[in-house]
C-alpha cells in the first residue's frame, strides 16, 4: 500500500502548479484550467484520506466536487465568452472598468 504522504505530496504539487498558473497567466482560459487543477488537488486529498480510513464518504464527496466542477466550467466559459465580446480578448487584466 502506498503511504498517504505520497498522495498528499502529489496533491500539494498539483495545487501549487494551479496557484502558479493563476498568479502568472493573464489568459482567462488558462485561469480556468489552473482553477480546475487546484480543485482536483483537493479531490485527490479527499480520495486519499477516504482510502486510508476505509470510508467511502470522501469518495462520494469527490464525485460531488466533480459535478460541481462541471457546472463551474459551464459558467466560467460563459463568463469568458462575455469577456471576449466586451473587451475583444480574454486578457483578465483588461476587465477593470467596474472597480470604482
Amino acid at each position, binding site marked *: 500500500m502506498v503511504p498517504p504522504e505520497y498522495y498528499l505530496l502529489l496533491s500539494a504539487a498539483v495545487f501549487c502548479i494551479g496557484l502558479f498558473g493563476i498568479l502568472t497567466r493573464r489568459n482567462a482560459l488558462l485561469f480556468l484550467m489552473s482553477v480546475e487543477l487546484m480543485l482536483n488537488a483537493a479531490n485527490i486529498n479527499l480520495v486519499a484520506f477516504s482510502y486510508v480510513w476505509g470510508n467511502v464518504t470522501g469518495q462520494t464527496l469527490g464525485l460531488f466536487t466533480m459535478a460541481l466542477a462541471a457546472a463551474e466550467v459551464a459558467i466560467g466559459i460563459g463568463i469568458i465568452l462575455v469577456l471576449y465580446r466586451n473587451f475583444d480578448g480574454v486578457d483578465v487584466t483588461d*476587465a477593470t472598468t467596474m472597480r470604482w
Partner: protein
Amino acid sequence: MAGILDFAPAIVLLPFVSFLVALSVGDRLPKGGAFAGIAATAGSLVLAIATVLTVAGGQTYDATIYTWAEGIDAVDLTFGVLIDPLSAMMLLIVTLIAFLVHVFSLGYMNDEGETGLPRYYAGLGLFTASMLGFVVADNLLMAFMFFELVGLCSYLLIGFHFREPGPPSAAKKAFLVTRFGDYFFLVGVVAVFATFGTAAFAGSESFPALAEAALNGEASVTTFGFEPQTWFTIVGLLVLGGVIGKSAQFPLHTWLPDAMEGPTPVSALIHAATMVAAGVYLVARMYGFYAISPTALAIIAFIGGFTALFAATMGLVKREIKQVLAYSTISQYGYMMLALGGGGYVAATFHLMTHAFFKALLFLGAGSVIIAMHHNENMWDMGGLKDKMPVTYYTFLAGSLALAGIFPFAGFWSKDEVLYETLIHGLGGSPLLLGAYAMGLLAVFFTGFYTFRMFFLTFHGNPRSQTAEDPHGVRWNVKGPLVVLGVLATVAGVVNMVPIEKLLGIGGIDFLHQWLDGGFEGLTAHHYADLIPYSSSYIGSEATTVAVGAAVSLGLALAGSGLAYLLYNVPEPIRHTDRLGRIKAVLYNNYYQDEYQVWLANGVARPLARVANKFDGGVVDGVVNGVSGVSLFAGGRVRRIQTGVVSNYAALLTLGLTALLLAFGILGGWFV
C-alpha cells in the same frame, strides 16, 4: 338619560359640515354655499338656545368624546365637551353672531358681486366651528388645538382678497403675531401636563382644582424645584402669552388694526365673537388657576388697563371708520382683561357678552355704510348719511351709545361693573389695581370721544363727497341683523343690573351673577370670589361706592361724547385733531409700534439669527463635514487596493493565506 346636552357636539359639527359643503359643492349651489352656512349656524343657534335653557334648569355636561392618544403610564389625550353656564352663554353668543354674520354676508358679499364665495363661506363655516369647538373644550390641549384653528381661519379670511397687496400681508401679520403668543401658550400647555398630569378644566381632578389643593398642601404636584406659588404664576403667564396674542393686548395688538383688510362681516365675526374673544374666554375658562396667583392677576389687570387707555388714544385720530372700530375693540378687550385681573370674573364675562353684541352691531353697521359708500371707508368722505339710511343710523346710534357706555345701553352696565370691581378691590389695599383703574377710567373719556367723532363724521353734517350724496341702498339681509343686534345692544344690560340692585336694594336682579354661580363646583363665580387674593373696601358704604363709580364713569363718557358733539356735529366739521400737532402724528402712527416691531425683527432678531446661522454653518456643519472629510480621504487612499485586475486579487489571497498559515504555525508551535 339622553338629554339635549348630548347633542352639544352637533353645535360644533354643523358649521363644520357647512364648511365641507361650501368647499366641495359650493360653486354649484345658489349664492355660493351661503344657505348651507345659514342653515348650519341657525341649527347651531337653536341647539345653543336649547342648551342654555337646559343649563338654566341646573344640568351640566362633561364627557370625553374621543381619546386620540392613549397614554401608557402617562396621560390620555382626549377631545371632550364641557357644558357649564359659562360655555353655554358663550355658545349662544357665538352662534347668534355667526348666524347674523352669515345673513349679513348675503348683502355684503353676494349682492356686491364678489367672486370666490364658496371659499368665503367655507372659511366662515370653519371659523365658527373652530370657535365653538374652543368654547366647549374640556381640556387645555383641545382648547389649544381649536385656538390654533381659529388663528388659521382668521388668516384665510383676512387674506380673502388675496389678489390685492394689502390683505395677504395683513393676514400673514395676524398669523405671525398671534403665533408668537401661541408659542408661549404651547409651552404652557406642556407645563400644565408636566405639572398636573391632566389638563382638564372641570372636576376634582382638574388642574385648577389640583393647583388650589397643592397650595393648601393637600396635593403634591411636580413643580420642578420652584415654590408651587411661583411655578403656577410662571405657567399662568406662559398661557397668558397666547391670550395676549389672540385678544390683541399690548404689545401683541398690532395685528388687529391691519386685520381690517378682511371683508367687513369677517371683522365683525373676529372682533365680536370668535378670534379676539377666544383669549379672554380662555382666561375666564381657567380662572380658578389664575385666581390663586396674585402676581399673574396683577399683570393681567395692568396689561388690560394699559391696553384700554393706549388703544383708545390711537382711536382718536383715525380717518377710516373700521380703523376706529379696530382700536375700540383692542381697548374694550383691555377692559375685560382689567376686570379679570381685578377679580371681576362676572364683570369680564358680562362685558364680553355686551361687547359681542354692540361691536358686531357696529361692524355690521360700518359694513352697511361701506356698501352705501361704494367701499370707501374714509370718514372724511362721508357725512349726512342719517337721512338716507335710517335703519343703519338708529342701530349704529344704539351701538355707539353702548360702546361709549351711556346709560341705559348695554355697554354702560358692563363697563361700570368692570370699573366698580376694580375700584373696590383696588381700594382694598392694592395700589397697582388703582393705577389700572385710573387708566381704565381715563379711557372711558376717550372712548366717548372717538365713538361719537366717528358717529357724527359718518352720519351728520353735510355730505362731503359724491357717493355720500347718493349712497347705494342696502337690503333686508343687511338691515335684519342690524335690527336684531341693535335691540340686543340696547337691552342686554338688564341681565346684570348690579348698580340698580345695590342702590335701590332690589334683590335678585343680578341674573348673570346667579347664572355663573351654577354649574360645576369649583367653576362658579362664588368659588372664584373666595379664591381671589383681594379684599374689598368702599368709599363710605357699598351703595355710595356704586353711585360714585357709576357717576364718575358716566360723567366721563358723557364729557367725551359731548366734546365730540360740540366739535363734530356741525354741517362742515374740520379736522380738530390737527391741533394736536406732533401728538397727532404719534397717535396716527400708532406710537410707532409697527416701526418698533419691524426694528425688533430687522435690527435684533435678524442679526441674532445671522449669528446662529454662522454658528450652525461654521461649527456644527464644520464638525460634520470634518468627520466626513476624514472618511472620504481615507476611502480615497484605501480604494487603490481595488485595482480590478484579477491576478492582483489572487496574489493578495495567496499572500493572506500564507500569512495566516505562518501565524498559525508560529502560534501553534509547528516549527519548534
